[in-house]
């Protein structure tokens, strides 16, 4: 379980506004959060609630309009490209669509070699690099010997997503943001992907942040759940507290929208 002492990533009043004037859209509205080391967090909300925008701000892919993000207690500084790269050694992401996450023109080796380079292993001898890549691939049950010299589009969706995890295994970041990692692959591969993510968490002790609309997945994996509606966190707490005893009507609605197997699924409430 997460120790409540070591803050890993936190934020106060984080806000993102897109457009201005008539088109002003408040995507993320003054959210406060505190993620601890080794914790598994889920941010749940429906489409358009601002979860992906928040994830992009955490990753430093887009700037914040207002508010501060703190990394390990320090104010995050990503003002230059060099500092950004340094930051990305600590925070990495897996995205929803594995099919568009890879550069079609780069071979799989290049994807993995990039990770080794980012970690500072650029000058390692070739055998060392191959050993590292083989190890990473075997962690997710892929065979590097079969993958080398192949292009990403030759793999299935599940295999691509597993390769993503192999990347994370090479980088061993402190924080991993998984933005709907399983919504585009089938239920059976989903179990495999979650298995590997959990195994990786157990080995490296990293903080995992799931961004998802699937409250079932959130309940299954996480320690802490944040429910997001229209850019605001409306409810947060431990998974059991939020999902089994929801207080907010929005949370209740999200839960009632998920098809279940032991309870009746009430279709009359849409």
């Amino acid at each position, binding site marked *: 379980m997460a120790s409540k002492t070591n803050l890993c990533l936190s934020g106060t009043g984080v806000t993102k506004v897109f457009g201005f004037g008539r088109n002003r859209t408040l995507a993320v509205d003054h959210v406060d959060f505190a993620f601890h080391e080794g914790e598994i967090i889920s941010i749940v909300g429906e489409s358009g609630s601002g979860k992906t925008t928040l994830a992009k701000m955490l990753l430093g892919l887009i700037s914040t309009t207002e508010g501060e993000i703190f990394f390990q207690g320090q104010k995050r500084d990503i003002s230059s490209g060099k500092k950004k790269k340094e930051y990305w050694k600590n925070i990495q992401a897996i995205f929803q669509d594995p099919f568009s996450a890879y550069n079609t023109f780069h071979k799989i080796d290049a994807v993995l070699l990039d990770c080794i380079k980012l970690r500072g292993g650029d000058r390692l001898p070739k055998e060392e690099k191959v050993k590292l890549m083989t190890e990473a691939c075997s962690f997710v049950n892929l065979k590097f010997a079969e993958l080398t010299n192949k292009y990403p589009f030759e793999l299935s969706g599940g295999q691509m997503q597993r390769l993503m995890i192999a990347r994370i295994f090479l980088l061993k970041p402190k924080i991993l943001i998984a933005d709907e990692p399983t919504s585009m692959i089938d239920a059976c591969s989903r179990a495999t992907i979650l298995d590997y993510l959990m195994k990786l968490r157990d080995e490296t002790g990293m903080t995992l942040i799931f961004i998802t609309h699937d*409250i079932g997945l959130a309940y*299954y994996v996480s320690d802490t759940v944040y429910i997001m509606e229209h850019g605001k966190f409306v409810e947060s707490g431990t998974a059991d507290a939020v999902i089994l005893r929801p207080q907010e009507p929005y949370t209740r609605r999200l839960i009632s*929208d998920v*098809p279940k197997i032991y309870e009746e699924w009430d279709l009359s409430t849409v």
Partner: protein
Amino acid sequence: MARVMLEVRDLTTKYITRYKEDVYAVDHVSLRIEEGKTLGIAGESGCGKSTLALSLMGYYFPPLHYTSGEIIIDGQNITGMKPDDVRKSILGREIAYIPQAAMNALNPTRKIIDFIGDVVRAHEPGWNKQMVYDHARSLFATLGLPAEVLQKYPVELSGGMKQRTVIAVAVTLSPKVLIADEPSSALDVTSQKMVIKMLRDMMNSGFIKAMIFITHELPLLYNVADEIMVMYAGQIVEHATAKQAVFDPLHPYSKGLMGSIIVPESGLRNVKLTAIPGVPPNLKNPPAGCRFAERCKYVKAECKVTSVPLYEVGYDRAYRCVLTETELRRVYQDGE
């Protein structure tokens, strides 16, 4: 007994690749759906679910080819009909299909009403603009969709609304059988519920007579379907009522699939998910014996040699495994 809306006997279809290799993606599939029933089809990616859906319509175009079997829709045998005739008189009227990414079919430069006009005129060439509009209005009213949508462009609609619009267009001519291939997997849970409710309402009001629902989301399938067929490598491996398939699966593959269910209900947190190792076999040269043997936990020597027929249990249940019902239940109990 209720009227049988769709009956398929021993349907086999194949893909011919550009290297002239035969891939049997649907292998001796038989099924029947009675009026008012929903049949669910479950299985991993690449197990032939979508190919089965395409084959059921009797509309074949390369690389998909018909090999053998019969398709009977409400007493009308459509086996061997020419593709053009099938398109003119069967598709849309007798049987309709909603593909996985249906909402991408909408043309971004045209209003929804123009899109409906195109579809309607393909079947009723004589209709003028006003007739199409009246038809579309009454259709949307029947299905509970707002009429404003007709005058909008696709970009103005949300994903869920686009999907419901496309479903409305697919059922314009009130087909007898609707095949829905993952109609809600690109949507979030709230929009998914709206789509399912719309399909359910169409069934209840008799707008469509029977439905085939394809998905890999088992909790969803359990709530939608009356019966579930589990498909693996082009074959049916289990056929049972929804309740039996989820709570008491017989085939080891179905058992594995049911082990990957995640739902937000108490007591199901941190339950170990049992992923099935490996991938489905390449159907260019399928294994001689049981197709699941490579990945099966309870595999025996004979499994890899002899092919396994579909054993019937009782009136509405069948499975494809060398072990008997009692033996299977025993190995599952020992495994837990």
